[in-house]
């Protein structure tokens, strides 16, 4: 997983992305990330960390008033930061598939399931209606939906949460995208359905060779799914590494805080947190380490400068002055 800048071998490369609101609040401060073909990369952070906004910027679907202030986004070595809506339309739903968080709000309640999935094909391919129908049914089966002919005739409200999420995944993968963006696809689901969806994403990654950008606040699913993880705090990645490095040997204090927040058998009935409670997010320009006021290992330099990424191990970096050697 060594980062190699000389070769253009990344399916997605984000460089110093900065996203601001109309009022000037910095929602994403400085995000750089890379995804290799076939890799599953996790983007972990709490609400307000900018993980969803980052992915919206990548997909070109930022809400009105929020714009990219700086940085570049390369998809297959092509800069897609400021492409036209028509160009964007050729990529989204075709080369980039997106699975949204809330399945019940992402489907049109008035249109039958089959037609909604078919719409993606209608826009991006010139297949005949018969071919399209076969492919819709085929994809629905591929996401483990059963009884697909009947199901295609149903409306979204007639489906369970897990089924709706599968329909969304079917829509995202029907054109065999090179990159699949999954924005917290399991948050609203039950444990058993959750683990099925994780398995399904793994399968899609394997069988269709799609790279996956998986956004979550939940380390338990990230652990099962991702090859590499970026931990985001207030719009800046604070730690990057292989999943095992991040989970077994976390270095940045914020990653440690996130991991200690998860109840585990060893800590049963004990206090979980050792660090300071979360304060209101600061949205101005970052001049010092943003975690400084909560960090138990804070020292003078943290309050004066913004740390860069420092190397810890092969592929493992953390934005903390403790590792500046």
């Amino acid at each position, binding site marked *: 997983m060594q980062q190699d800048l000389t070769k253009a071998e990344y399916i997605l490369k984000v460089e110093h992305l900065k996203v601001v609101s109309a009022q000037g609040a910095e929602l994403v401060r400085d995000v750089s990330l890379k995804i290799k073909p076939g890799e599953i990369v996790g983007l972990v952070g709490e609400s307000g960390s900018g993980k969803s906004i980052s992915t919206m910027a990548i997909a070109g679907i930022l809400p009105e008033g929020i714009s990219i202030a700086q940085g570049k986004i390369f998809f297959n070595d092509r800069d897609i930061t400021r492409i036209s809506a028509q160009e964007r339309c050729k990529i989204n739903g075709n080369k980039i598939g997106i699975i949204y968080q809330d399945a019940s709000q992402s489907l049109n309640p008035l249109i039958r399931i089959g037609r909604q999935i078919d719409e993606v094909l209608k826009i991006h391919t010139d297949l005949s209606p018969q071919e399209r129908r076969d492919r819709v049914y085929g994809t629905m089966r591929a996401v483990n939906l059963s009884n697909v002919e009947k199901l295609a005739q149903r409306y979204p409200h007639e489906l369970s949460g897990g089924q709706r999420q599968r329909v969304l995944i079917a829509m995202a993968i029907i054109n065999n995208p090179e990159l699949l963006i999954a924005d917290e696809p399991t948050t609203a689901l039950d444990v058993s359905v959750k683990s099925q969806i994780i398995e399904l994403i793994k399968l899609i990654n394997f069988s269709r060779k799609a790279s996956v950008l998986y956004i979550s606040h939940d380390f*338990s699913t990230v652990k099962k799914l991702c090859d590499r993880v970026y931990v985001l705090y207030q719009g800046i990645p604070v730690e990057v590494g292989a999943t095992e490095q991040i989970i077994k040997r976390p270095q940045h204090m914020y990653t440690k805080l996130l991991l*200690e927040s998860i109840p585990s*058998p060893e800590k049963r009935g004990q206090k*979980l947190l050792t660090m300071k*409670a979360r304060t209101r997010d600061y949205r101005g320009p970052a001049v010092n380490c943003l975690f400084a006021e909560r960090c138990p290992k804070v020292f003078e330099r943290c309050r004066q400068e913004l740390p860069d990424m420092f190397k810890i191990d092969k592929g493992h970096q953390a934005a903390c002055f403790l590792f500046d050697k």
Partner: protein
Amino acid sequence: MTGELQNILEINNIYASYSTSLRKLEFVLEDLSLVMKSGECLGMIGESGSGKTTLANLITGFIKPISGKIHFRGQEIQNLSLRQRIKQFNRGIQMVFQDPYDSFNPKMTIGKQLMEPLEIRKFLSNSEIEAKARYTLEQVGLSADYFSRYPHQLSGGQLQRVALGCALIVEPCLLIADEPVSSLDVSVQAQVLDLIIDLRKKFDFSCLFISHDLAVVYHLCDTVAVLNQGSIVEQGNVEEVFQNPQNVYTRQLISDSGYGD
């Protein structure tokens, strides 16, 4: 009242349904029985649709069962109205809900909402009520200046603390927490869990903790009941059930959550 080991809650053969027609009766809870000991924290786990919230609503009296009995501290309560409940139990049943943003009146200050449960009960003077509200606010880890703020000025975690305060201010015997941490971020969730553990030591209450997150239930609860399709399929000590589940459904649930390994 009587002995220490009294059961705070006994539910016997409860049937509940939301069907309006008797001809097409579909039961949400079917022949459910449950015993909860005084002072214990019982975790209720199960998938969505298994009837967790319906059970909570039955105990609090928001809905009435079709048949079956609920005893709270030895007294039959399933047919009491909410008003009768307040009259009969000074220290009754209180509830904390899943979504903190939906649990508060946006036009009332936090302090006012903390005082309301005591004002309804009319056994304290106004100054006593305010003093108690301020004390409770402090107990849930919020500073005094939150007293005059409005709900929209607080974060989800802070509101959930206030919700706990509102429930505990009347010193209930039984707290029903319906997925109180599911909508919170991990670190905020950890804070609220820490707070619940803390409050259980300070205020002495039994707790029915409903959750779909097995890790949280294992962390917090003494005993656990597994609900599947309206019936309890397994109940017992948390450690025993998690390490050695007897029921097939429980086994599946625990392996899916990755908690078995």
